[in-house]
């Protein structure tokens, strides 16, 4: 009974948020017009997608590269296990 009530409450909040984000407060994304109008002047690159990725939101992309690098290091550490296992054999 408690589970049903909590699930119902959770779904109610979900639909409330969806309703609020779509109809009560529609997304007013003014920044896209700014990007389209000023991308060539501000960054000098003709490709707007590239200027957004590497220039307007470049810290986001820096974090993306860092996440990729962390994944690389993880794969490297897991697959090149030269540490404890080889020492135990010797």
């Amino acid at each position, binding site marked *: 009974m408690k589970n049903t009530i909590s699930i119902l409450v959770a779904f109610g909040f979900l639909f409330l948020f969806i309703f609020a984000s779509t109809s009560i407060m529609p997304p007013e994304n003014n920044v896209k017009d700014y990007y389209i109008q000023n991308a*060539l002047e501000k*960054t*000098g*690159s*003709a*490709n707007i*997608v*590239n*200027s957004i*990725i*590497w*220039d307007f939101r*470049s*810290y986001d*992309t*820096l974090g993306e*590269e*860092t996440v*990729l*690098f962390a*994944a*690389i290091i993880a*794969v*490297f550490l*897991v*697959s*090149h296990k030269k540490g404890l296992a080889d020492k135990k054999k010797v």
Partner: protein
Amino acid sequence: MDIIIKTATRIFFPIILMFGFYVALHGHLSAGGGFPAGAIMASAFLLLVIAFTEKEVENKFNEIKIEDIKSIASVSLLAIIIMEVVLRPDLLHTQTPLTLWSGGVTIYLNLFGSIVVASGLMIIIYSLIKEEWKSKKSTW
């Protein structure tokens, strides 16, 4: 693999690498950028690894070791950080727009980002295929 795939790989490997480099260099003017360019370069390496056996691949890359590729990736990531944080105001507005030498900091970031993605995916592909080679259950 049979000789058709080996010959095709021998022909297409430098072409695919060059196309990836082109996508990275031309990313601020046409469609593309750092991430797709790195994926294209890594796909060339994946083709090489699939087509040839272990000894042939390691004869081709006799000088380069996997640790060197890892350090190339980390140096490129460091270059990206330095360019975004330190050199960013100096590199903007120094080139003429709509030519190849334009885009401010974007062209450098495309290049180094593609190097990071390409070397990283190469390390992942090589590590996974080496496990496959060790177990000797590979079907190709």
